[in-house]
C-alpha cells in the first residue's frame, strides 16, 4: 500500500509542468487561472495536471467565495522528498560559492600587494 502511494506520488512528480505547479503552490494557494498564467499551457490542460496531483494526494482543492483554490499538501511530498532538504542546499551551495569567491579575492589582493613590493624603488632622474 505504502509503496503504491509512493509510486503515485513519483508518477505525479515525473512531469515538469506538475513539478512547476507544486513549486508555485509552495508560495501559497492559487486558482487555475493563476497557475496557468506562467505556463504556455491552456487552463484545461492545467486542470488535468491538477487532477493527477489531487489523486496522488499532493494537493487538495478548496472553494473560497466563488473561486476554487489548489492547496499544496505537504505531507506526501515530504515523504517522497524528505531527503532533498532544499533549504540546506540553498545555503550550502551559496556558502560554497562564497568560499570560492573569498579565496579569489584574497588571491587578487595578495597579488596586488606583491606587485607593489616588486616595483623597483623610484630612481631620481
Amino acid at each position, binding site marked *: 500500500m505504502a509503496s503504491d502511494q509512493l509510486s503515485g506520488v*513519483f508518477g505525479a*512528480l*515525473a512531469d515538469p509542468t506538475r*513539478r*512547476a505547479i*507544486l*513549486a*508555485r503552490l*509552495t*508560495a*501559497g494557494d492559487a486558482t487555475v487561472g493563476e497557475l496557468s498564467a*506562467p505556463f504556455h499551457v491552456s487552463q484545461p490542460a492545467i486542470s488535468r495536471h491538477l487532477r493527477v496531483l489531487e489523486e496522488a494526494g499532493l494537493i487538495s482543492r478548496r472553494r473560497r467565495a466563488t473561486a476554487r483554490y489548489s492547496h*499544496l499538501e*505537504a505531507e506526501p511530498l*515530504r515523504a*517522497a*522528498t524528505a531527503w*532533498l*532538504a*532544499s*533549504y*540546506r*542546499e*540553498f*545555503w*550550502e*551551495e*551559496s*556558502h*560554497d*560559492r*562564497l*568560499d*570560492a*569567491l*573569498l*579565496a*579569489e*579575492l*584574497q*588571491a587578487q589582493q*595578495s597579488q596586488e600587494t606583491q606587485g607593489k613590493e616588486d616595483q623597483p624603488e623610484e630612481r631620481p632622474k
Partner: protein
Amino acid sequence: MATTNKTAKTEIAAEPGTQRIVITREFSAPRELVYRAYTDPELLTQWMGPSRLTMTIERNELRDGGRWRFIHSDADGVEAAFHGVFHGEPSLEGGVTRTFEFEGYPGHVSLETLTLEERDGKTVSRAISVFQSVEDRDGMIASGMESGVNEGMEKLDELLARLQAERQATQPSSTSKGDR
C-alpha cells in the same frame, strides 16, 4: 595564499518548537572581506543562491531604515523575489539586522541578524532568523525557497530515472505488473 577550505560546512540549526533558524559557517578569510561579500551588491550577486539562478539586486540601501530587494531568476524567467528593511546602521562590529519577506508568501516576515566573528584569521558568520510563528519557520525549512524546491525536483528526476533503471535490471523479463 588562496586556500580553499574543503571541510567547511554550513550548519543549520532549527530546534523543534521554536521560531528560530540559525545558520553558521566558517570562512577562511578576514572579517572585513566577508563583510564586503555580504554587503557589496557586486560581490553578493556572485555567490548568493544556487549557481543556476541569476541574482539581481534591485536595491540595497545599507543604512538604518534602508530598503533591500533581491530577485533570483532561472533560465526560463521564473522569478522569486525577496525584500525587507534594514534596522540599525549595518556595521562590521554590530552586524546587519533586517526584515525578510518572500514575495510569493506575503505577510510572513522574519527578522534576520547577521554577525561576523573573526578567529585566527578565519571568520564565523552566524545568521539568526526569527519567524512570526513555528509554522512559518517549519514552512520555510520544508518547502525551501522556490528555487531550492525546483533544484530538489531536478534531483528527484535523477532518482526516478535511477529507480526505473534498477527496477528494469532486477525484474525478471516476465513483468509482474499484474501483482502476482
